């Protein structure tokens, strides 16, 4: 059987896309779900960083990634892609942003276009999972601190030097003790008397 090549029909998104969509609760039903998601995707493209409930964020993320991926693949001269953008983005100036700003930004991107973080939970409060979803390359301060362990900061440099000195002193002490034991019992085996190195 010759299986048709379906690998090129739709691009593979770099996020986890489950088989079934979430049936988000809405008064208007499935139509209302799509309306709500449209608003969310519009907001994400407009503000580039939004905080909202985890489930709706996850759904909107999938649609946003698909939208950006289509825009990159086909460009703005492709009618179906323009129709998709027209449907999903409620503010029409964002269609310009999608094709002129976001497509070039993410052209050579090897990772997902969005990033989702779990927001801190307000402890005396309702158990609602909030998430923060943002586009990569946004102009705001970063939510993660990758430099928390910067060895080149002055306090870390001084602390590392102090730790190093302490260890050297301890090693010298141990070496002295081993030397003394060897002198006292020259016949005994080294391994029996040597003490295990303590982790400093």
């Amino acid at each position, binding site marked *: 059987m010759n299986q048709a090549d379906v690998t090129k029909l739709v691009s593979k998104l770099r996020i986890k896309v489950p088989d079934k969509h979430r049936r988000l609760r809405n008064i208007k039903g499935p139509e209302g779900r799509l309306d709500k998601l449209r608003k969310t995707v519009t907001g994400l493209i407009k*503000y580039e960083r939004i905080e909202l409930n985890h489930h709706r964020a996850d759904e909107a993320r999938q649609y946003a990634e698909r939208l950006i991926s289509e825009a990159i693949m086909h460009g703005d001269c492709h009618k179906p892609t323009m129709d998709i953008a027209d449907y999903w983005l409620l*503010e*029409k100036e964002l269609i*310009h942003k999608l094709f002129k700003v976001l497509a070039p930004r993410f052209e050579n991107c090897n990772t997902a276009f969005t990033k989702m973080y*779990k*927001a801190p*939970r307000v402890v005396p409060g309702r158990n609602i999972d909030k998430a923060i979803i943002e586009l990569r390359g946004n*102009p705001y*301060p970063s939510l993660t601190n990758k430099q928390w362990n910067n060895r080149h900061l002055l306090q870390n440099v001084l602390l590392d030097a102090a730790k190093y000195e302490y260890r050297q002193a301890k090693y010298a002490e141990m070496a002295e003790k081993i030397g003394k034991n060897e002198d006292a019992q020259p016949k005994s085996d080294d391994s029996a008397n040597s003490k295990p190195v303590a982790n400093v």
Partner: protein
Amino acid sequence: MISRVHHLKNIIKNVEKNILQIFGLPPRELALAYTYEKRLPEPKKFSIKDIVGDGILLAVPKFRRTVEKRLKRKFGSPEYTWKMLVPKTNIIVCNSCGHYHERGHLCAHCYKKVEAETKEIQDKIQQKLGNQKPIENDVIVLYNGESLPDQPKEFWRGKRIIEMKKDRPQWFSKNLLEKTTQQPSESKDVKPTDLA
């Protein structure tokens, strides 16, 4: 079996009744005295109201609750709903600020300041560039006393620049001005002001 006497008696009675009906009954004043047989009151039927009266009906348990049901109600079950307190073992220390947060979630203390700054920038962007013109360029955020990095002027033309009227926060690195998709700068020397 009615005897013949009774039978005759009945016939006479009926005849009398019929005659009276035809000619109209005589006035009551002329009626003869007759025995008035008092009907005995019907024996009173038993009703629960005699015992209860006007009381209130209250629900009452019908059967004893078994110990299994009692324990299930009190403590729940792991497969269904666990009603006992469970300690949280997923609380860790933030490496940046030292406050506590749940593993996998952002640190509340760190996020608070980032959120505030983000909101300010977003408000500024909407204020300055929130008109309905089509968006064709990235936004670049500059703080007090900052100028654009060394790039040819053509590079910056058309870019949407937002100037925040405040000092750059200590924790917001300057290096974010450089985007990975932009052309790398060709200047060989590193100025002291450009260090993180």
